[in-house]
């Protein structure tokens, strides 16, 4: 990483106080604009001079982008989280904790307390990849060049993709993204043509669609809110994040599932409840958080036991192509998917810590 210990390169800074003003600024300056949310991903790019925007639009002064609202009577239709709501606010929100705890668990495992205090939910799902070749300014595919350094013979690719790679092998590092996919969240985007609402899994794109970005936002677009329907409120949730250190690290892989079961029994003693409904998502395995639809279809109606979990794990990694240093990600993903269905005995220890 190019480490330059001084201030960032100069840019023009705008601090709008309404979404309408922000949109006008984005339209006015087009592709020159850098949209600043919490800034924790952004400042790396700007300090290292890898990205050199002329104009920065800071969203932190827009009150309407912040906070959690209930939808419908008493939150009967779910909740809407403003894109600039901080991760700490998400973690501590009583309704999210009570009904959509999957998201609280995921958000609590993001980075460090200071980063959660400043980093936003919109920024967390829109952050760029951690591939160090790309972040160091190497002219790779993602940066508009015609080579992938991570996938070259000498490339270091322990953290990279095992699925859906297409020239670029970078992965999406978001922890909240798979939780939002499992909760069937909808992303609200303001575009020039008006408001557009997309399913969480459709917000993200792989290199086959667009190799230069991880999400569908085009210049001028603004992610304003994330809606979580009540469909999965209070379901059984599982979130697990694997990383090199227990705190303050990006995921090597993470998994999120939401499940509704019926009947009696427990996975331990051979009897089992039946899986009625399930959504499951894995991130840091590909350039986009993957919704494992084939797994969902295969386990629906099956007993929630070890055999089903193992079958799901094998199915999840079908078609995986490891690189030189990330073969471990295949058994890792197999086991995570299994645990997301059967449970790991108890939830991750960290998730129960108060922050």
């Amino acid at each position, binding site marked *: 990483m190019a*480490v*330059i*210990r*001084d*201030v*960032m*390169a*100069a*840019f*023009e*800074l705008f*601090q709008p106080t309404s979404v309408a003003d922000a949109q006008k600024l984005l339209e006015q300056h087009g592709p020159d604009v850098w949209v*600043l949310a919490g*800034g*924790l991903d952004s*400042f*790396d790019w*700007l*300090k290292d*001079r890898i990205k050199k925007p*002329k104009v*920065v639009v*800071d969203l*932190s*002064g827009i009150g309407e982008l912040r906070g959690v609202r209930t939808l419908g009577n008493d939150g009967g239709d779910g909740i809407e989280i403003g894109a600039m709501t901080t991760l*700490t606010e998400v973690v501590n929100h009583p309704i999210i904790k009570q009904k959509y705890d999957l998201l609280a668990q995921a958000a609590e495992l993001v*980075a*460090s*307390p*200071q*980063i959660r*205090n*400043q980093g936003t939910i919109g920024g967390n799902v829109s952050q760029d990849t951690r591939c160090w070749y790309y972040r160091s300014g190497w002219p790779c595919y993602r940066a508009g060049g015609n080579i992938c350094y991570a996938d070259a013979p000498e490339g270091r690719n322990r953290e990279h993709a095992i699925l859906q790679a297409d020239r670029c092998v970078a992965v999406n590092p978001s922890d909240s993204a798979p939780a939002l996919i499992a909760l069937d969240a909808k992303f609200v985007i303001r575009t020039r043509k008006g408001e557009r609402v997309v399913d969480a899994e459709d917000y993200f794109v792989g290199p086959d669609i667009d190799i230069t970005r991880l999400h569908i936002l085009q210049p001028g677009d603004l992610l304003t809110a994330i809606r979580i329907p009540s469909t999965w409120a209070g379901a059984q949730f599982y979130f697990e994040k694997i990383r090199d250190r227990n*705190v*303050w690290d990006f995921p090597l892989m993470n998994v999120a599932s939401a499940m509704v079961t019926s009947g009696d029994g427990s996975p331990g003693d051979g009897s089992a409840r039946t899986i009625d409904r399930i959504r499951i998502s894995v991130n840091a395995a590909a350039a986009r958080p993957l919704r494992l639809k084939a797994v969902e279809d295969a386990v629906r109606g099956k007993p929630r036991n070890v055999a089903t979990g193992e079958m799901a794990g094998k199915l999840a990694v079908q078609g995986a192509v490891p690189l030189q240093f990330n073969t471990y990600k295949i058994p890792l993903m197999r086991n995570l998917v299994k645990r997301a269905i059967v449970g790991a005995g108890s939830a991750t220890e*960290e998730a129960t*810590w*108060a*922050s």
Partner: protein
Amino acid sequence: MTDKLKSEAIQNVPQEGVLKSVSRRNFIKGVISSGVAVSSASYLFRASSLLHGQQPAAGVGERLITLNVNGQQRRVDVMKQETLAWTLRYKLGLTGTKLGCDRAECGSCSVLIDDIPHYSCSVLTHTVRGRKVLTIEGLAAEDGTLHPVQQGVIDEQGFQCAFCMPGFIMTAVGFLKTNPNPTRLQLAHGISGNLCRCQDYDKILTALMRGAENMRRSSLG
């Protein structure tokens, strides 16, 4: 050497005594407030070939804004791209806030903004207008009584080189506002965004736990 001789020896080096009374910290602060730092800062900019040539571009200009730092209204010229850590250290002379990585990784620049710990290296100064910034310099009471967490750190001698100390203390103070009675594990989690290169974590935790205890006691008394 007897005690008497010792004291004579000390008295016999008045020059050294004078020098000692000017601490490094106060010297730096003096330099900054006297305006020398402004020229040294522009010297730094000139030294960077990457910044050189960008100076005339739009947006480089500083703007005079008012910041609430440690309970005082401070008027300061701030560039659009300037981080809070930079402003605090090089414009306001508050060098207690350290710059370690400058990449939101090490936590030594941690300050409280509206009571919440932030990495000041990763906050644009223009975004804290109208908000309350608290640095390590503003933690002690006006009469000089140390904050209970600072006292805990001294009592337990929690740090080795202590470069990371202001960041740890500010983060702990912010965390303890939300959880005044944490377990050791919870406090460890609360300060997990701060790194200590001396690997002194065990003693740091002991010291900050003592600080938490001091805080609870002082709020009771």
